[in-house]
């Protein structure tokens, strides 16, 4: 099971990194989404994985998994939605301002903004 989780995290990270290196805003956003999936699963798995032992207290339970990473990841999921929404909005804004969704500045604009 550990191998499955680790390979999933690895592949999602790899796809995420590949996409954020693209030149248009949409793949970058998708790439960041993939990286947030990978991060969330990573943090969650750092509490070690086990099936069938949810951290819900009961008299019949034989044990519990670690609840702390779960709590951390829960808020992280919601926050990453907020951040994705901001990015989407910025990408849309840039698209409407510039007329295309390229993320790299053109060479001359780059020099202007650096000065």
């Amino acid at each position: 099971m550990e191998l499955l989780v680790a390979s999933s995290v690895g592949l999602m990270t790899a796809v995420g990194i590949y996409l954020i290196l693209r030149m248009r805003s949409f793949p970058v956003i998708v790439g960041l989404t993939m990286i947030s999936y990978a991060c969330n699963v990573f943090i969650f798995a750092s509490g070690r994985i086990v099936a069938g032992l949810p951290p819900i207290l009961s008299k019949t339970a034989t044990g519990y998994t670690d609840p702390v990473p779960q709590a951390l990841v829960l808020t992280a999921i919601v926050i990453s939605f907020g951040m994705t929404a901001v990015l989407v909005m910025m990408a849309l804004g840039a698209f409407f301002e510039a007329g295309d969704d390229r993320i790299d500045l053109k060479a001359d604009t780059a020099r202007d903004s650096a000065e």
Partner: protein
Amino acid sequence: MSPALIAALPFIGALFPGLMIRVGRNACAVMAGFFSLMALVGLGLHIPAILRDEVVTAQINWMPALGLNANFFIDGLGLLFAGLILGIGLLIIVYARFYLSERDPMGQFYTYLMLFQGAMVGIVLSDNILLLLVFWELTSLSSFLLIGYWKHLPEGRQGARMALAVTGGGGLAMIAGMLILGHIAGSYDLTIILQSREAIQSSPLYLPALILILAGCFTKSAQFPFHFWLPHAMAAPTPVSAYLHSATMVKAGIFLMARMWPVLAGTPEWFWIVTSAGLITMVMAAKIAFFKDDLKALLAFSTVSHLGLITMLLGFGTKAAATVAVFHIINHATFKAALFMCAGIVDHEAHTRDIKRLGGLRRLMPVTFIITTIAGLSMAGIAPLNGYLSKEMMLEQAAHTAPWVIPLLVVIGATFSVAYSFRLIAHTFLGAERNDYPHHPHDPGFGMWSSPALLATLVVLIGLMPMTFAGWLVDAAAGAVTGAAVHAHIVHWHGAHSPALWMSVFAVGGGLVLLGLHGSLDRIWLATPRPEAKRIFDAVIEGLAALFARVTEALHGGSLGRYLWITVATLLAVGWYAFRSGSHLPGTRALQPIEPVAAVGWMSLMIASLAIAVLHRQRLLTLILVGVVGLVVSVGFAYLSAPDLALTQISVEVATVILMLLSLNFLPKVTPIESTSLRRVGDAAIAGVGGLAVGGLIYALMTRDFAFPTIADYHLANAKTLGGGTNVVNVILVDFRGYDTFGEITVLGIAATLIFALTETLLRPGPANDRLRTWTGDTQDAGDRHPLMMVVATRIMLPIALMVGIYIFLRGHNVPGGGFIAGLVVAITLVMQYMASGFGWTEARQRIDYHGLIGAGVLVAAATGVGSWLAGRPFMTSNYGYFRIWPLEEFELATAALFDLGVFLTVLGAVMLALSSLTRIAVRAGQTINVEAYDMEDKFEPAAVKEDR
């Protein structure tokens, strides 16, 4: 008055000029003066105690863990310097009131001045070297503001920048030096460091610490080779020059050398570095001053020269020399401040301070002439003025110091000093009256000459009766510097056998000869090429700027891809280094079995992820695949004992996909191929390595046991007893780590507000708005925009979904659910109404403002936290109890549920605000607004309903 309050008063005073300027310029000056005066009076009250050899202290623990305490103390040295800073500061405030013109923003001036004054007083009264460093940097900053006060003058701005670069750079060196010193002494408290002389001087770190601290002192006090910034700082208004460059800023370095004298002085290193820097500065600056035509530049170089003299005296390392240094600090401050103010008066009245355009002013400006003459003769060291007394004592000290080159150079310096002092008086005031002054000069009003006149009076009084007017202060300050009782013996006549007398006679004679020869010497001087400090400095700065512009351009020249690539590559390199520098054993933790259903889920996730990478150019398809990945992730959470995460992930997934679909409505539907295949291969390689690294890391982590006992057990054991809930994740969120959650919902609220603000910007007139208005979609609209089936279904689902939301919310404390998930579920339900029945229909029925929801949520959560104060418990301690209301079964109420309500409201508001912002953009882009729920395409009148703002 507490020393801390004395240091604080100027800062408090800095708040007022900006306000009082609305009342008037006088009120502004009076207010600044009042606070200086209060501080001065407070300081004066301590004089009797300090003369009894007591030290007045005030201790405030600020950050004891860092050794940073706001400790202040006043001893003789502190008294002397604080007195000079506040006293001359007061005179400058009066002088500046009359000097500044109507056009100058006086409120700003006094605010800067008071800030500077406070920082200086802070330096001289600090009993903690870290605190001292804070004030030290503050003087650099506030002097930058003061020197650049005339923002319209390029020289002012450049001079300010140069001063900041040099003194700020020195300050950085000094921070390092002081930290080393504190490290050696084991404390950052000055009083303790001052007692650790042996430990410090025998430490191998003594020399680095000494050099670093001296770098700070020399830059601040404009000592060779850092002397070049001071003349350029003369572009400041004259009151600033008079204050910063006579009594305060440049004396800060001198002060610190005097303050550290007991622990740093007395070694050969100290003697050679400090004495030679002082000596070179003194002679070289005196020579340059002689050839300067600008009154203020002349005075600036003479200041540099006199500071060199004081530095040299401190460098000698003897008690007697240190005493002379202290005495000369007093004398120099009095005559130099007076001279600067007089130079300002001449400039103010004659509209020039070029000596070559002046001359013969003695009849036109008799008062200024008298004051300048007194102060100038004192600077030259003519009996019986105070400058004479300290110069004689200095010559006496130099005469008895080996090697012989020291007295020789000192005499040369003194000769030039006499020459430029005489030249200042003679070429400005003596000679024939001219008729080509830029402005016909006359003496200014009393207000302007009162300050220099008072200082000139002091020059004479100290000169005539040194023991009465300065002896006690010299004793107290020199006692503090040397750490031993000092009884200075200041007399006018050292006897005919004294070498000082003959050195002095030679200097005066030589000075007169030099003055006589000035015309021809000046021609030679002008004809000789010499390095121009400003040009070198500018070239260095320009070179550095160009270099770093190139580095910046290489790192992030506007290409997001490039700097993300650099970031990823750096992370991987660092990770690789960390991996290689450790040892590794295989993991020992027992692996979980792989069940078939898990393998199926894994397969679909892997295929979907790979497909995203391959097919990412088809954007709609990518979104669907992202949905698949998210779905598998949430199922995975459910499978691996995280039901709360599964619920959250799946609802967020829905919201995310809707959001991206809405944006994709506008964005191009395919990503064109723009990169070379080589680049794609490179990117894929680095992505692959990154994926391997992260996957490997988490595999290594999962196959090992915890290195430390986990905090999970505490939470599991106490969730029920302390938090009153059995869903431990929820209890952590709303109780144990409630403060974190509070922060997180605030961030979420801010993100939503940011989205709203971005939308507002887009909808304002501009290129984006123009593009939106003329927007023509690149895909065909669906013929039936609001299908009947969907409308009916969502209407029926609305109450059910809301009930589910409430149910999930209520049960969350004990079983999976809670505010986050409930908020998302309700948000999705509402979004479905938008999708099914249309924007106009839903908006008309939507009575609650989303901003309000976010605000209410954060407030409710905060109020719950504050509520526990009322019960006398710490912030965010929750409480719970069991209740029974017939006919319900016994149920539990916890204050945490109220907190969770805040979470619920914020999440709901944030998601809705984000999605409805996108809708507003769609409306601006010409999407029609329906009034009735199931309008068909042909019923619209598109043009009429376009949202117009």
